[in-house]
């Protein structure tokens, strides 16, 4: 069953064409990587999936719903999004409050506390519980940002550059975490080793066009293609 269906999608910021005629399907439980040069439209594509941007033409369906205003509330409950810039994602006074934010009003205070503490343990960030998010190190912020999204048990997780700024240990943890999660993941990244490790298929964007979609085994061994598109 396809959980994300994108058909002939185009988008422009003002007069600048950023995506053009992009089509693909993503199946439930798949881990999909998006790679491409800086400015190729990876972040834009993710933002279109969650409705932060509106397509100019073409359609985007997520979990069977067209990504449109009236579905956004339902979509945001079921789809998580980790920002490329973590400073934009965290906004509450403490790490605990930030992680609890999405759960407030949906569950009792005790349940919220339980869920938050279990996610803090799972991400090994219990010691950051009462710190202010903006005082954390880059990698710590990243871990907290992912926790704020995962605590809501999303069916689909969109992540923009999740390994940026992580040390080897954190990166290994992240790899293990994504691999072990049953959810559908769509991950934009410049970290080809990471993408190769965790993804079932990889989408390649080039100046707004989807030029290839393939398994990492095939793609990352096609040196002619990688070289021709400056991906290595």
């Amino acid at each position, binding site marked *: 069953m396809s959980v994300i269906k994108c058909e002939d999608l185009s988008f422009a910021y003002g007069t600048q064409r950023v995506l053009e005629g992009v089509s693909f399907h993503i199946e439930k439980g798949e881990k999909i990587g998006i790679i491409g040069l800086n400015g190729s439209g990876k972040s834009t594509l993710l933002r279109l999936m*969650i409705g932060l941007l509106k397509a100019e033409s073409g359609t985007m369906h997520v979990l069977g719903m067209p990504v449109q205003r009236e579905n956004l509330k339902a979509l945001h409950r079921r789809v998580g999004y980790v920002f490329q810039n973590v400073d*934009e994602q965290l906004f509450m006074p403490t790490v605990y409050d930030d992680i609890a*934010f999405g759960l*407030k009003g*949906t569950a009792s205070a005790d349940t919220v506390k339980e869920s938050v503490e279990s996610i803090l343990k799972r991400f090994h960030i219990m010691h950051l519980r009462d710190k202010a998010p903006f005082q954390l190190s880059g990698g710590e912020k990243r871990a907290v940002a992912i926790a704020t999204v995962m605590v809501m048990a999303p069916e689909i997780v969109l992540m923009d550059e999740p390994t940026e700024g992580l040390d080897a240990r954190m990166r290994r943890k992240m790899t293990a975490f994504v691999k072990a999660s049953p959810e559908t993941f769509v991950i934009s990244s410049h970290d080809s080793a990471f993408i190769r490790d965790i993804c079932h298929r990889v989408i390649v964007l080039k100046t707004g066009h989807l030029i290839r979609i393939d398994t990492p085994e095939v793609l990352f061994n096609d040196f002619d293609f990688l070289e021709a598109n400056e991906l290595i």
Partner: protein
Amino acid sequence: MIFKSIFNRFRRVHSGIRLVLMVIWLIAVVQTKPEHLHYLIFWMLLQLPHMSVEPKKWGRQMLMAEPFLLFVGLSYLFVYRAPATYYHLTLTEGIWAFIALLLRGNLAVMGITAFVNAISMEGLADGMRWLKVPETFVLIMMQTYRYIGLMVQKVHQMTTAYCLRSGGKTGVHLDAWGSFPGQLLLLSLKQAEATHEAMMLRGYNPAASYIGISKIQISDLTDAIIWLLLFAAVPFVL
């Protein structure tokens, strides 16, 4: 000793109540007429218990308002030239208006800095929530405020980057200054927008409460009433 205990007592007053007191105080200060300027001195004394920062820091913050006050005030000097007499002293209307503006302006700034310094941003948020300011607004304001710290860093980075590239000359050339504030404004707008998006994406529900609101104690009310009585007594006593 006794002063210290008064100070500490006032610093514990509920931030919502203090916010109300500050607004009353500001309105009174700003509306003071030139013939009542001496009230300001006594009102200033009443503001003292609310202060908690060392005078140096406080003075520096007030200095930032000075160019603006002077700029507005100087224009009065040229516009209003008719003679006016207050406190048995005959000057022009413009000079009196200038003096009044400086006094009132500085006092207003003083009140705000004292208030902001004495209660934390969290306290202010608490006070605003108590006054039923919409939570969305309070959350975004807090985030943007925190971002100011990042903005200051950004300015530092921008100036450092500039200086490194300008061959060791210190300071930023005047030409470059024009675009700096604009950049910062755009950055903070972008931050406010991003925060709003981040909230929406995590299913922000305006009906749920995210920031706790602290309760008011009887002592908060009595302290506030005493302060208000002292404040209101000034025009009668003088």
